[in-house]
């Protein structure tokens, strides 16, 4: 008789053995993750947020997780208690033809509708209040930055400060920033998880994003939409510095090489790039990068 058949004749109470095995697996997984957590310093960008916009998005995320848990916990409880109590062999009430009950049905049409209405109201409000196109309510003039996603690098243009910077976005701390974003390459997505939600960067189109940094530091930025073979190398950093440091950074950058339309064309060729800054002369680079795709007039 094969080993499998012997096994299947074992008379261990089936459900308890299964429950034990499931608990054992879950603890093993939890242990593994705890081990990983202890093994180093990890930042959860979506929770350890550093920007006004990202902070509000985090609260919304936590609120919706709680709301989801509010529904899931009772359902999980019912799932396993019903499975245990009504398993064949356990003595319990058996009513095979009881298949409708207006009271229960109104409950589980009603409660989800109520919860969804709450979340829908929150959604309506936050879809407008956290609209990336909505400027931050700050009476100071937003710092204007033009972002061009190129093949496998980011170009940041500061028209008012006459500075161009590659793969590094330096911003004054606690200052509202307004970003106009386009792409001179396949579609990308501009995302700095710790500061704000993402927005697509598309050729021939200009999208807007408003964000700020609430404290000094360096934050990870990336393209979160596939745009070619080396898109995973399209990372950049956002540095939030004091106002004075920002001014010095601008003056130093303006000592650098001149950034003209030709230098843009060279930079636009596919390939990575090290962070470097230039003195921006040609203010129309951003608009030309869009008009290039318009082919005549719109």
């Amino acid at each position: 008789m094969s080993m499998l058949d012997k096994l299947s004749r074992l008379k261990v109470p089936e459900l308890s053995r299964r429950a034990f095995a499931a608990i054992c697996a879950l603890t093993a997984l939890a242990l593994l993750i705890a081990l990983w957590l202890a093994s180093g310093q990890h930042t959860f960008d979506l929770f350890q947020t550093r920007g006004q916009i990202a902070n509000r998005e985090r609260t919304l995320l936590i609120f919706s997780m709680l709301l989801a848990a509010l529904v899931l916990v009772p359902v999980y409880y019912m799932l396993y208690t019903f499975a245990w109590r009504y398993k064949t062999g356990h003595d319990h009430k058996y009513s095979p033809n009881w298949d409708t009950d207006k009271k229960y049905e109104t409950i589980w049409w009603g409660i989800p509708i109520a919860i969804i209405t709450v979340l829908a109201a929150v959604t309506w409000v936050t879809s407008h209040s956290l609209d990336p196109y909505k400027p931050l309510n700050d009476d100071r003039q937003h710092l204007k930055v033009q972002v061009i996603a190129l093949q496998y690098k980011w170009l940041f243009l500061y028209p008012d400060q006459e500075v161009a910077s590659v793969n590094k976005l330096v911003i004054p701390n606690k200052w509202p920033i307004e970003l106009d974003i386009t792409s001179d390459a396949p579609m990308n997505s501009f995302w700095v998880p710790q500061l704000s939600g993402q927005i697509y960067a598309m050729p021939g189109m200009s999208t807007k994003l408003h964000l700020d940094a609430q404290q000094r530091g360096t934050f990870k930025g990336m393209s979160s939409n596939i745009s070619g073979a080396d898109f995973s190398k399209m990372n950049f950093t956002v540095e939030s510095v004091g106002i004075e440091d920002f001014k010095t950074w601008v003056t130093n950058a303006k000592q650098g090489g001149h950034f003209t339309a030709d230098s843009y064309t060279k930079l636009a060729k596919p390939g990575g790039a090290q962070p470097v800054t230039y003195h921006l002369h040609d203010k129309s680079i951003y608009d030309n990068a869009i008009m290039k795709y318009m082919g005549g007039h719109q």
Partner: protein
Amino acid sequence: MTSKAYLTGFMMSLSLTVTAFILVYGATSVGGSPLSQGWLIAVIASLAVCQLVVQGMYFLHLSSKGKPGRSLQIMLFVLVMAAIVVGGSIWVMHNLNYRMMPGEQKVTETIQDKENIHHH
């Protein structure tokens, strides 16, 4: 289903078509047309819908009563779903195209206020 029915359907479609073409031919010729652009398009659209109904009744024999009613119900359901997809797409794309326009034109457009995009 008689030849008389087909002929009446044909004549009605013919007249609807001719009216539409004459209207547009007149509008684009030197005299121009009494109706404004928006009205003209509305008239053409209604003429087209009338012709769809006429051809549906006389050629496809769609009618609300009895067995042929089933094919009409199916068609109406599909038309509603098609309208949702086409209408939804045009609404979404119109909104997206507007918000993708480069430069500052967006600031002055009236939609600006509705979408609460206010610059200081």
